[in-house]
């Protein structure tokens, strides 16, 4: 299949996802007529099933920001935010969002986004979230409900943490949604939605884990961000998400059966030469160019941490309808950036082994202290524990000023070169070891001149 031909290929799951998103934005644009309420909330630790149980429409500002970057609008939005006094040093998602709002709040589909009726501050794994919604509260003058997700500082979820979360959900979040919608909380409905979530989660994990095959049928970073889309946003708990993941899983299985690699915008990946783990969010302003740098080298990402920010399903978590509020609490606390650094390291080291990866590449983004602070230590510890090479590149999420294509390309190439050298050295050391054992097995002809 030529590159041109395959680039044009859209698998059914892609079209399915595209239509789900389009319909969601159509619904958002019709809230004037439908009177549906709109709740802005964040991806990590989102309570989608609970929101859907109240028939409200979620909006995720991070998604708008990254979509703006992919549509090359982020520069103007960030510029507007900086012009009105936002610091160049802070997370560009926030500035992109504020700038977008100030310049008309036109969403990814070109339609004006409705204002939030409520800000659900699912404060999970990122300090900036708190300030972001304080800023939006000032912009929109609307109520905020805080859901503080305790961090796994000691690498565990304690009963006190769970109780704190459940009480917040029961005593504050649910009453706020009841007040907003005029509906009573229907626990049965929530359970039903969570049942659907768990089904979709099973299939999504199967898709992510398909990367254990050689060659991997997916790219778990660049492709991964599409695969997590419905699960991490407005669709978890819907039949649409169940169907989407079932379809996606079928497509992966077909590629495995055919021995094919991932589908990329440049076509099906050429021969898989490198299997990488990537830590950190992607750059969105040059997403395709960035991906192509990997594609051109035959580098496939077999596991990534970014695809776990909205839930660590691959570690076994499933939404549990038998215990809905506790389960929502556990879900929030388990998200990747809500885990402490030793836990994050353990995950990456485990991936290295389970996915037979050649090494770890960190994309350190300037915006995000939640991800970035401590990454150099992760890199060092990863190398120490696995003996595999680590690489480090620096970009930003949605600020094109911090994406130097030549620099990034150079770093990726040198890193891949390092892997090759390591392989050669590894092979050489195997040869040396074989030679040494051969020498040891040779009959001793002359041990010591005096004998």
């Amino acid at each position, binding site marked *: 299949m030529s590159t041109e031909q395959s680039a044009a290929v859209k698998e059914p799951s892609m079209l399915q996802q595209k239509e789900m998103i389009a319909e969601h934005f159509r619904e958002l644009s019709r809230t004037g007529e439908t009177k549906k309420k709109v709740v802005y909330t964040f991806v990590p630790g989102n309570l989608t099933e609970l929101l859907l149980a109240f028939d409200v429409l979620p909006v995720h500002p991070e998604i708008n920001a990254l979509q703006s970057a992919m549509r090359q609008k982020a520069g103007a939005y960030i510029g507007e935010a900086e012009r009105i006094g936002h610091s160049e*040093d802070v997370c560009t998602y926030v500035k992109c969002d504020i700038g977008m709002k100030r310049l008309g709040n036109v969403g990814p589909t070109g339609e004006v986004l409705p204002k939030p009726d409520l800000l659900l501050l699912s404060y999970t794994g990122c300090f900036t979230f708190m300030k972001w919604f304080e800023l939006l509260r000032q912009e929109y003058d609307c109520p905020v409900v805080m859901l503080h997700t305790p961090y796994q500082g000691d690498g565990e979820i304690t009963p006190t943490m769970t109780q704190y979360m459940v009480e917040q959900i029961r005593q504050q979040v649910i009453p706020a949604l009841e007040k907003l919608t005029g509906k009573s909380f229907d626990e049965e409905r929530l359970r039903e939605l969570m049942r659907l979530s768990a089904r979709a989660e099973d299939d999504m994990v199967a898709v992510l884990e398909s990367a254990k095959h050689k060659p991997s049928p997916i790219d778990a970073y660049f492709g991964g961000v599409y695969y997590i889309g419905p699960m991490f946003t407005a669709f978890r708990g819907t039949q649409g998400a169940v169907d989407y993941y079932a379809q996606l899983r079928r497509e992966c299985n077909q590629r495995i059966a055919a021995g094919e690699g991932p589908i990329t915008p440049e076509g099906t990946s050429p021969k898989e030469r490198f299997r990488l783990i990537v830590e950190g969010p992607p750059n969105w302003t040059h997403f395709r160019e960035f991906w192509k740098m990997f594609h051109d080298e035959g580098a496939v990402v077999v596991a990534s941490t970014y695809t776990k920010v909205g839930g660590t399903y691959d570690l076994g978590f499933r939404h549990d309808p038998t215990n809905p509020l506790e389960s929502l609490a556990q879900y929030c606390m388990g998200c990747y950036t809500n885990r402490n650094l030793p836990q994050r390291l353990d995950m990456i080291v485990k991936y290295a082994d389970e996915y037979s990866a050649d090494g770890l590449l960190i994309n350190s983004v300037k915006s995000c202290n939640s991800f970035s602070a401590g990454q150099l230590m992760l890199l060092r510890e990863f190398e120490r524990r696995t003996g595999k090479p680590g690489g480090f590149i620096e970009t930003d999420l949605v600020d094109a000023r911090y994406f130097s294509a030549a620099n990034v390309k150079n770093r990726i190439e040198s890193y891949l070169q390092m892997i090759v050298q390591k392989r050669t050295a590894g092979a050489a050391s195997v040869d040396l070891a074989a030679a040494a054992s051969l020498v040891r097995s040779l009959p001793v002809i002359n041990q010591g001149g005096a004998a």
Partner: protein
Amino acid sequence: MDSVDQYVARADALYHDVSYRSVAEWKTRTGKKAAGHLPVYAPREIIDAAGMLPVAMHGAGDQVEIIRGDAYFQSYICQLPRSTIELAMSGRLDDIDAFLFPSTCDVIRNLSGMWKMLFPKKFVRYLDLPQNFDRKVAGRFWAGELRHLYADLCALNGTTPSDDALRLSLARFSANRRAVASLMALRASEPWRAPAAEAYLIIRAGDVMPVEEHTAFIEGYLAAAQGADRPMRDYTRVVVTGAFCEQPPLELIRTLERAGCYLVWDDFTVGARFLEGDVSLAGDPIEALAQAFLNQSVKNACVYEPDGKKGEWLVNTVRDTRADGVVFAAPSFCDPALLEQPMLVTALERAGIPHTSFKYAENLGQFQVIREQAGTFSDGLRLWSNA
């Protein structure tokens, strides 16, 4: 009574003691352990009640050359964690037995994980301050966390947990906050009597002094300062905010004054006065401390503001201290301070309060630009008030 100079000399020596020799001496004298904590707020009462010395750590300022610390952080992360790592890797924190990392920001949060990996033999605890301010829900959570911390520190130090010990510590810290408040009040009313850099050192001495000693130290300084003959100058009065975690170099504080600004309020050492007023001694002391955090803590960028009256406190502080304007001084790359700033600016602009802003790093060595900026601002304020 000691003279102002004697108090300041002692505080200055403690400030420059980045090897924490005074902590080592205290440990030798008492046979007990020390617990350090990062900015901004930590429940020092709990450490004290466990019989340990609470040590407030504020990085190394401009006093230590960073050799190892830079290898741990990218260029776009603030300075404080690098110098803290530097102090630890160079053995200067060896005498600190336990480390508490409050949920000030994601950098300090992640530093707690780095600490676990770098120093597996030390006691390391992340303190997840409640960001939900519901008295019942958050009160139960925070009291639970405090109880857990108290039990663990007592076990580490070989002391028996006791409500009486906790109450004694609550009372000691309430007394300390009263003393700090008196010093802040003097700064607001007669700033020439307690220059900003001097008052700063006096409060910072409490980073390492046992609390009762520090309270007496402030009271002694206050008496000496009130009696000292110092001229009042024609300076403008400014409030400084944004510098609550990584600290500005001492020379920067002096520079602001030399540029013609009396700093009638600042948040440099806000951790020492994070709770306002006394903590109740009635009932369960841990509950009392937990409720004090929820009901009596200052407004600060590192905690959530549930009421949405962003910046009202700043406008009130400007009015209460009769300040002419506000200086935003934030560490470069500081998420809490820099994300907060536009909201505070909105509140100031609504109230018609002039402001200026700059960024710094704790190891900044050049002050000319800031001096000129502060001087221009101060001149502008003077013109403004004369107009």
